[in-house]
């Protein structure tokens, strides 16, 4: 925390029940070294106790606080106020796109979680298999069978940023396809192809690469989707020559 103080205007999307969403402004004094989630909590604590938003761990592990800040998907617990506005500036906070809004900044992610389960999304992965192939020596092999939490924290930022998820509700979306790629790379489960080798699976992606740009957790969904395509084509070629 610093001694510096900024005066900013927070513009927050509000929506209750069936009413249409609207914006409400709040004048705040903040430390620019605070995180956006701290500023949202400040609004709740001192200005509007009816404001609803999702949050839990405050250290980028739970993935609950994904929101759009000035139009860009951010995990608000690790996004510094300084990085998104300036002294005297504005900070617009909106719910993630492509999910039903339950209330204010809270979105319903149940369908998303169900799809992650369909892709057998791992919760923990062996450390030596957890890095992406282009991340050399990220976790040197010490011969032990360590495990770690998987990178994807299921925040939904990638789904919100994806231009295809915007127009096609049936599209599996970047997080699910990335999870499927990880499942296949860890287990080799061929049944995962039934899920992803479809019009609304890996072939629906139109290479916008926004998912990777906004991912706060090094999942690199775009790379994984492209890798999944290679795996699908490899599987199809093998199938063509009689492999099961």
């Amino acid at each position: 925390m610093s001694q510096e103080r900024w005066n900013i205007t927070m513009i927050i999307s509000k929506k209750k029940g069936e009413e249409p969403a609207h914006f409400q402004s709040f004048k705040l004094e903040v430390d620019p070294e605070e995180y956006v989630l701290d500023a949202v909590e400040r609004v709740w604590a001192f200005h509007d106790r009816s404001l609803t938003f999702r949050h839990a761990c405050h250290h980028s592990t739970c993935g609950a606080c994904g929101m759009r800040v000035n139009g860009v998907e951010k995990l608000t617990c690790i996004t510094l106020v300084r990085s998104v506005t300036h002294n005297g500036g504005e900070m617009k906070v909106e719910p993630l796109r492509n999910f039903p809004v339950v209330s204010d900044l809270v979105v319903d992610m149940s369908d998303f979680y169900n799809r992650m389960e369909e892709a057998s999304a791992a919760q923990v992965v062996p450390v030596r298999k957890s890095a992406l192939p282009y991340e050399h020596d990220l976790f040197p092999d010490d011969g032990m069978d360590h495990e770690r939490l998987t990178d994807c924290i299921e925040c939904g930022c990638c789904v919100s940023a994806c231009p295809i998820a915007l127009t096609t509700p049936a599209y599996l979306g970047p997080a699910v396809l990335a999870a499927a790629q990880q499942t296949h790379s860890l287990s080799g489960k061929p049944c995962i192809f039934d899920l992803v080798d479809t019009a609304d699976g890996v072939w629906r992606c139109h290479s916008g690469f926004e998912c990777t740009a906004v991912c706060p957790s090094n999942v690199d969904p775009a790379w994984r989707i492209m890798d999944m395509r290679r795996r699908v084509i490899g599987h199809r070629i093998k199938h063509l020559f009689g492999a099961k």
Partner: protein
Amino acid sequence: MANQPSASKFMRWFDPRNRQPGTWAFILNRVTALGLTLYLLLHLFMLGKLAQGPQAYNEFIALAKTPLIKIGELLVVAAGIIHGLNGIRIALTSFGIGVNYQRQIFWLLMALAAVGIAAFGYVMFFVA
């Protein structure tokens, strides 16, 4: 359900604000594809004029040499070059080639496109 996916939101595909070069390429590919499709229809319509005899053909050629039509033709060339080069980038990255360098590939190919468009423009307006 304004915040949920809907096919009616396709116009937002063309909004480049707060987005990355990947989306700019996505937008460019759609705009150029629509432009080329429109051109194909116009082209077929103009070719139909040829069936109306030599006079109609000569009138068409005279029209094709006017500056406005030449600018239109240059836009068609630009759309073809941009769409084609960007298509190469998408084909490569779609199969895992150069995915981590897709931004650099995009800028490189768009620089090539600019050179190509300038060369075509020079020939069309100052040589041909």
